[in-house]
């Protein structure tokens, strides 16, 4: 990637205080991920140029710390060339097991913010935080909090781009590196995009850039102002249209989680195996609340509700039920899993339970999904109660409001004195 003449993250117009209204897409990119993970477990190497990659004669650089980059070492560079450029560097073989373990931790932090996480690779993901804004604040605030959490808990830095779509968010994170945050306000989108070289456009590699250059188009602005027909004839129908759309900052791609992740759930492992049905009932209510809250913050509803039970002997059973109508209502999910548990209990008996979990599957977007109304349904029902509770939680934290049966019993010495 060629360097930008202007380090844009220093430009206050795109800094953390910029207007992030209507910019729900975050692109989070870990800084020099492999090298940073190595530094994390070997702090004595901090400050030294660290290069991770194949150390054999045909090895290639997988990652280089920013110190190493000042010597001109780049990813995908032959290792031999890196060694010539930076003979004093610390050269390490990659440990993918470790990187993947750390990656999982990072992605889990992303998913705490929103279930709409599109993981692009081990160290990079798009997040759609539209549904999380009410819970966690504006996209810019979410990005800052996420960066702080990744740094605080994992000792790693990342760069985040915040914009109205995936294309701009990714451009922004690239320009925020390292350890930066860049917001592309909607109003300033073209100011941000148009001065960039054509290579910034997604899908424009060296060859396409060369074609465009021969047309006299070197900046995104040039592409934007070029007649779309000439772009199509130079690049082909699809690529021409694509490049023209991008040059105006238009990108309709949605943040999509993989099909396998099209479910939301929560589970809990008890400190001591549980047989008391009341305790299991409360656990399920809490889990139903947790999972539906995440469902609601992602603006999703689900039709299938699943129960998972692991007994003291580690045998695990799952039961699920598909509802007539998709739901995001805590009470409906709870009543369904409780029904599933009672049926299970009738056949399995009251065996001690080690782990219990709730999962909601067959997810569809809540907005625009027609909803079958039920007879006698009050105009303001459980759904609205949930939304009100979510709003309270967003302001005062999850301890502020919960179903009455999840309140701690009075005899608990820790909390007995205070009454809500």
């Amino acid at each position: 990637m060629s360097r930008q003449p202007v380090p844009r993250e220093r430009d206050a117009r795109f800094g953390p205080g910029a207007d992030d209204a209507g910019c729900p897409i975050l692109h989070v990119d870990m800084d020099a991920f492999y090298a940073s993970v190595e530094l994390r477990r070997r702090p004595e190497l901090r400050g030294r140029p660290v290069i991770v990659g194949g150390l054999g004669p045909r090895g290639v650089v997988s990652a280089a710390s920013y110190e190493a980059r000042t010597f001109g070492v780049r990813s995908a560079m032959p290792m031999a060339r890196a060694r010539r450029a930076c003979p004093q560097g610390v050269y390490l073989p990659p440990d993918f097991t470790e990187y993947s373990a750390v990656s999982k931790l990072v992605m889990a932090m992303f998913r705490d913010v929103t279930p709409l996480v599109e993981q692009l690779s081990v160290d990079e993901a798009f997040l759609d935080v539209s549904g999380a804004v009410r819970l966690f604040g504006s996209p810019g605030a979410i990005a800052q909090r996420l960066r702080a959490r990744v740094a605080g808990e994992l000792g790693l830095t990342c760069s985040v781009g915040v914009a109205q779509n995936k294309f701009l968010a990714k451009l922004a994170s690239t320009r925020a590196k390292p350890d930066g945050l860049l917001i592309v306000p909607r109003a300033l989108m073209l100011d941000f995009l148009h001065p960039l070289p054509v290579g910034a456009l997604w899908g424009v590699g060296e060859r396409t850039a060369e074609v465009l250059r021969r047309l006299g188009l070197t900046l995104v602005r040039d592409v934007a102002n070029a007649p779309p027909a000439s772009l199509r004839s130079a690049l082909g129908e699809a690529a021409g249209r694509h490049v023209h759309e991008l040059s105006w900052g238009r990108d309709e791609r949605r943040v999509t989680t993989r099909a396998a992740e099209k479910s939301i759930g929560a589970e809990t492992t008890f400190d001591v195996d549980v047989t008391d049905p009341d305790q299991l009932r409360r656990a399920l209510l809490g889990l139903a609340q947790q999972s539906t809250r995440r469902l609601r913050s992602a603006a999703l509803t689900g039709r299938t509700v699943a129960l998972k039970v692991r007994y003291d002997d580690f045998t695990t059973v799952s039961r699920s039920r598909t509802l007539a109508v998709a739901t995001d209502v805590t009470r409906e999910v709870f009543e369904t899993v409780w029904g599933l548990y009672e049926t299970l209990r009738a056949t399995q008996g009251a065996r001690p339970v080690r782990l219990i979990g709730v999962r909601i599957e067959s997810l569809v977007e809540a907005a625009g999904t027609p909803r079958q109304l039920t007879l006698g349904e009050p105009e303001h029902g459980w759904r609205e109660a949930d939304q009100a509770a979510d709003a309270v939680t967003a302001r005062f934290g999850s301890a502020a409001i919960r179903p009455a049966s999840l309140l701690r019993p009075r005899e608990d010495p820790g909390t007995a004195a205070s009454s809500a």
Partner: protein
Amino acid sequence: MKFRVERDALAEAVAWTAKSLPNRPPVPVLAGVLLRVADGHLTVSGFDYEVSSQVRVLVNAESDGVTLVSGRLLAEITKALPAKPVDVAAVGSHLELTCGSARFTLPTMPVEDYPTLPEMPPTAGQIDAAAFAAAVAQVAIAAGRDDTLPMMTGVRLEFEGETLTMLTTDRFRLALRELTWSPAEPGASFQALVPARTLADTAKTLGPLGGNVTIALAADGVGEGMIGFAGEGRRATSRLLDGDYPKLRSLFPDAYNAQARVKASSLVEVVKRVALVAERSTPVRLSFSEDGLVVEAGGTEDARASEALECEYSGEAMTIAFNHQFLLDGLSVLDGPVAVLSFTNPMKPAVLSASAEDGNSDADAKAAYRYLLMPIRLNS
């Protein structure tokens, strides 16, 4: 035990009793049907501790006796036999069955392990078999199938003097049918919640036999928690469902803002056609105006369909959306040529009833059959 019987009579008797047998019986004998010959009759019985069914068939009996064989197997065999007299004989621990040149030998199960069928509860009254069957078919469509709400898998029967009211709901629609019956004691008043599947099967088999159906229900004492139905040579008992059935009648709106009258068979055809582009549980949209009715389905990006049809409509133009299967369920059991749809607004339940070609609205409000259907909210 040895007897000769007509193939059709045997096949029907066995098919009906075998239908109520459990798929996975808790004890093996419950997968059996009991064959008993006495007084020149064969009695075929099935029982799963919840539902019992019994058929009496006239046979040419050579010797009396009783035996127990697999119901499902016997049902399949009798269904496949040629249309000839069937000779049946218990020989040792086997049942031999001969029909034409076909010959079957079935193992029997120990009769002494088979539970005693429940007694019929005391007779509560009688009802015309055909009318009973038609009414049950009209309400059974709206019963719930979700076992997590067992109460809603039942048909609520309310006996009030000479009026019998049947009610079902699955939370999305409600079917109500009123008809007359003859109570054994005038002024009787009681209720029962009967599993819908059992009631539908029973009514379907008793209806075509004609005559009257005896309804047997104990207020208390013998046979409490049970209901019995008996018709020509057949009887069934069923356990009743528990639960506080919700007050459903109050869900019918007191007044309507709009009413549409449309030929029921045409609307069924149109909805079926248009719904081809609607996925399961996606709605069909009905737009009513003075110009008639337009039925549409599908989205802006998906396949779309629309069709107009004639409709008499009074009220402000409106669009209302329904689950197409729910709508078709109601339309398909109407007992008149004209479907009358009454509305308050697109978010409130609509009422479907039938009327004659020249029927007037006054009569419709008191229609014997009313189907209340909750709409689908289009953009939540």
